């Protein structure tokens, strides 16, 4: 018994330390090795596989089917011999016997009518119909299909640094997006009887084999997206001759496919600073009516990409402009039907160009020759060099401000995915946040450079508080596998984007953060990073211990709620000559009048972004522009221009000294820097920034003494809404009543 007690006492500090908010991430991260080092960089023996594709595909517009044959050349750069290969069959998620049907949770209350229940039984015969798998030299090869994965049983092991080529032929039914909602599919336009196809996950694709997962052959259930090796593609797409095709990569046979006029316009567009029509709205309208049965083949090549997608329709209007990214000229393009206008011809290509420039500044230079935005009715999905984006005005061409911002946000986001995960190629099947979260963060930066004080939905810390303060039973840690995440959007897009903003603005500072983030992007471009590689790089390049931050923000569901629970005031008093004593003085509590808070990002961007794109190119400002201008004009009116940094080291001998002891309670559990604004009696305000390490020894309650030259009227925590504090009502001393939204509305109405 004594021995057991002694052992427990010996282990107790370790056990307690293991649970500490500041404990280093040791067990949580994989041990560094020759493939991924402790600094977060690729190790000296890092390797990755290569998969090259040659594909011929035809799109049948009369029965909406795809028929294809491909030759995959797979190169094994790993140190391992491979006895089998895994190929992804993502379309099988739509097959009649898909697991996705069975695992979807339903309640009878979800079905509002008999008709809905009957529609539940509506079956779509999706999924790949594999016709043949054969080695390229003609030899037979056996294979086995396990739901969304196909295993090729090699006749001989594939040795290190050797390649194998094999052919697969297949066909499948394309789904109607409006009925069978998916990333890929077609939209039918009944008025002119035309189809618009946005085609993706359309060919059997190699799985990733690496040092982390072996084969990443986790079944595709619908949410965890794609994990793909890089390779080179040559793709021939045969479609009805009236169709216009756009795809990942560069068009190879444009002289055969395009008219002389279109070729001239395309050439002109390459160096144009504004979008130029390659196919005008009038030409597209004419094309809609021509339903010839002849076929045309469009040929594309793409190098060093992880996937290939394309779009095809008679309805496409096509515009393009050149974009200079650090001396490299890239062609930004958009393809959209007339239903997308007026929003699309006005904004889409400009958004593509702007996104490439801003992302290249914060991450890596955009390496591909083209970037393409294709219109869909309402969804958004990303592929290398090409993305499908929603945002359709009303039938009469009018649109709400919200619709415009949704369209802008989607295009920036989906084009931004070129960087995460198309180039910085993380494992989407495992970790949604690694591409969606990082991308949403840079999307926020890009939006802020598009329009002054763009009302970004995600990024600023105050946008996440409702989610983070929610019922913990409905929240997952960010570090959760993609299929198990609760509240997907908030978890994988919003919270990581906010976390990075908090790191940038509050924990690390912009200079350290931007440098480290860029190092991560440079290190892992055209490679496969893991969460540990990101966490380690951000620390290694900045010399900031962030384990507490990753632990709190990424591994827990804690939230920030720091309360200012007590304030004591002391002064020095002189007694008997020069002898001084410190006495506590009663505080006269008068309610503070607080102005509308301005976020830290807004304030700093006023200086750091000298000119937004809409200030340079005023054609971006539409009839809603006046609202933004009014809002922006009011910003400085609200700002506390007199905020100065609090310093205690320059007191002169004769200066008055007023001491304040502040007590902070960590109610939410997530440790956080503490930002304090002090309102002094002389009318000035001072800002004190305390690092999160103040909670090192006690993460529940801490106190701190501050010295001021003037009496303090009040204190306010998180005055710039930068820590994601979920309860602002306990942040102010003396406590004050927050006016309700109703009262503010009625006051402004008068």
């Amino acid at each position, binding site marked *: 018994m004594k021995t057991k007690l002694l052992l427990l006492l010996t282990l107790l500090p370790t056990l307690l330390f293991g649970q500490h908010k500041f404990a280093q991430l040791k067990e949580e991260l994989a041990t560094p090795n020759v493939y991924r080092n402790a600094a977060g960089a690729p190790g000296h023996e890092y390797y990755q596989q290569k998969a090259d594709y040659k594909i011929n595909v035809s799109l049948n517009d009369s029965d909406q089917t795809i028929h294809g044959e491909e030759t995959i050349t797979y190169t094994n750069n790993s140190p391992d011999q491979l006895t089998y290969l895994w190929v992804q069959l993502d379309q099988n998620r*739509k097959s009649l016997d898909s697991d*996705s049907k069975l695992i*979807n949770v339903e309640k009878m209350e*979800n079905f509002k009518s008999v*008709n*809905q229940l009957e*529609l539940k039984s509506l079956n779509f015969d*999706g999924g790949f119909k594999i016709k043949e798998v054969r080695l390229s030299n003609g030899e037979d090869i056996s294979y086995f299909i396990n739901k969304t994965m196909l295993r090729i049983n090699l006749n001989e092991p594939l040795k290190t640094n050797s390649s194998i080529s094999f052919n697969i032929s297949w066909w499948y039914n394309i789904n109607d997006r*409006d*009925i*069978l*909602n*998916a*990333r890929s599919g077609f939209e039918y336009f009944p008025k002119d009887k035309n189809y618009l196809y946005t085609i993706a996950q359309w060919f059997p694709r190699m799985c990733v084999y690496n040092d982390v997962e072996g084969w990443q052959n986790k079944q595709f259930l*619908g949410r965890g997206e794609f994990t793909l090796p890089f390779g080179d593609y040559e793709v021939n797409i045969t479609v009805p001759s009236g169709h216009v095709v756009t795809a990942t990569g560069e068009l190879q046979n444009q002289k055969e496919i395009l008219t002389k006029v279109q070729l001239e316009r395309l050439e002109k567009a390459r160096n144009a600073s504004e979008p130029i029509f390659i196919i005008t709205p009038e030409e597209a309208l004419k094309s809609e009516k021509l339903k010839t049965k002849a076929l045309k083949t469009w040929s594309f090549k793409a190098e060093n990409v992880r996937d290939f997608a394309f779009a095809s329709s008679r309805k496409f209007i096509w515009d393009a402009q050149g974009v200079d990214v650090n001396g490299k000229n890239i062609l930004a393009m958009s393809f959209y039907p007339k239903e997308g206008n007026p929003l699309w011809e006005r904004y889409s290509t400009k958004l593509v160009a702007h996104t490439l420039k801003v992302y290249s500044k914060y991450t890596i230079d955009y390496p591909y020759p083209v970037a393409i935005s294709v219109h869909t*009715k*309402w*969804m*958004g999905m990303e592929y290398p060099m090409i993305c499908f*984006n*929603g945002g359709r005005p*009303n039938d009469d061409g*009018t*649109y*709400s401000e*919200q*619709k415009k*911002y*949704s369209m802008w*946000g989607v295009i920036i*986001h*989906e084009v931004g995915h070129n960087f995460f995960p198309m180039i910085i190629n993380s494992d989407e099947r495992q970790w*949604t946040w690694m591409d*969606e979260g990082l991308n*949403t963060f840079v999307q926020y930066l890009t939006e802020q450079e598009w329009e002054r004080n763009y*009302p970004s*939905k995600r990024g600023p810390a105050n*946008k996440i508080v*409702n989610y983070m303060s*929610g019922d913990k039973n*409905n929240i997952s840690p960010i570090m959760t596998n993609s299929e198990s995440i609760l*509240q*997907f*959007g*908030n978890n994988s*897009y919003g919270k990581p984007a906010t976390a990075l903003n908090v790191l940038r603005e509050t924990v690390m500072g912009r200079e350290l953060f931007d440098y480290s983030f860029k190092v991560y992007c440079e290190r892992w471009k055209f490679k496969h990073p893991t969460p540990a590689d990101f966490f380690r790089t951000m620390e290694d390049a900045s010399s900031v211990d962030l384990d507490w931050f990753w632990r709190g923000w990424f591994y827990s569901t804690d939230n920030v709620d720091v309360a200012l629970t007590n304030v004591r005031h002391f002064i020095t008093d002189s007694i008997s000559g020069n002898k001084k004593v410190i006495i506590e003085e009663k505080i006269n509590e008068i309610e503070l009048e607080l102005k509308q808070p301005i976020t830290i990002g807004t304030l700093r961007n006023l200086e750091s972004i000298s000119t937004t794109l809409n200030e340079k190119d005023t054609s971006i400002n539409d009839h809603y522009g006046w*609202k933004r201008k009014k*809002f922006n004009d009011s910003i400085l009116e609200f700002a506390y221009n007199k905020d100065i940094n609090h310093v205690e080291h320059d007191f002169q001998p004769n200066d008055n000294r007023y001491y304040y002891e502040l007590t902070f309670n960590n109610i939410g559990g997530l440790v956080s820097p503490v930002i304090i604004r002090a309102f002094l009696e002389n009318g000035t305000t001072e800002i004190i920034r305390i690092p999160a390490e103040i909670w090192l020894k006690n993460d529940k309650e801490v106190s701190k003494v501050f010295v001021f030259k003037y009496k303090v009227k009040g204190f306010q925590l998180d005055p710039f809404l930068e820590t994601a504090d979920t309860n602002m*009502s306990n942040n102010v001393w003396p*406590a*004050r*009543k*927050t006016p*309700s*939204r*109703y*009262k503010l*509305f*009625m006051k402004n*109405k008068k």
Partner: protein
Amino acid sequence: MNLICYFRVVSFYNSDFMKLLIIISFLSIFSLKSNAHDYYFAFAEMELNKESQKLEVTLILNSHDISHWLENKNFTLLDLEEPTLEKNLKEGLNNFLLSGFKISHKSEHYKLIFKGILLKDDGNIEFYFESQKKVEQDEVNITFDLLMNQYNQQQNKLIYLKELKKETYEFLSSKKSQIIKL
């Protein structure tokens, strides 16, 4: 992946069959976007006005939730920007919102009167209501199940402003009503 899954349902088709198809697409086994819907919250803020003894309520919804409802009624968000709401629109909105937010005490139901609407820059829309009658009880029952019938993951939150404090109440499909001490 897609970001604007929050468009939820589009208005393009007006036939009942197409509407059903569209709705089922979000419930269907094939649905990706419904799973990926990024925002399943509606909020309410409530305060008892000590002078009038009436409850003042703000309902806060994301514009895409309202877009869906509007489009089904052949309106658009643009119609909400008009200085005066069309009568049909105002009544319809009132019914839609208040069918998902109810205040009662025992068998007594407190009717809420629509006072105004504000489209915010952040994509949210605020709707303002006041109770018609004085509230003299020291507690009320709030039922806040707005949008829960449409979306499995919907969870709503009410912030009750009580003197210097804020009290937060969560509403889930398993807990649609709560007693609030005034």
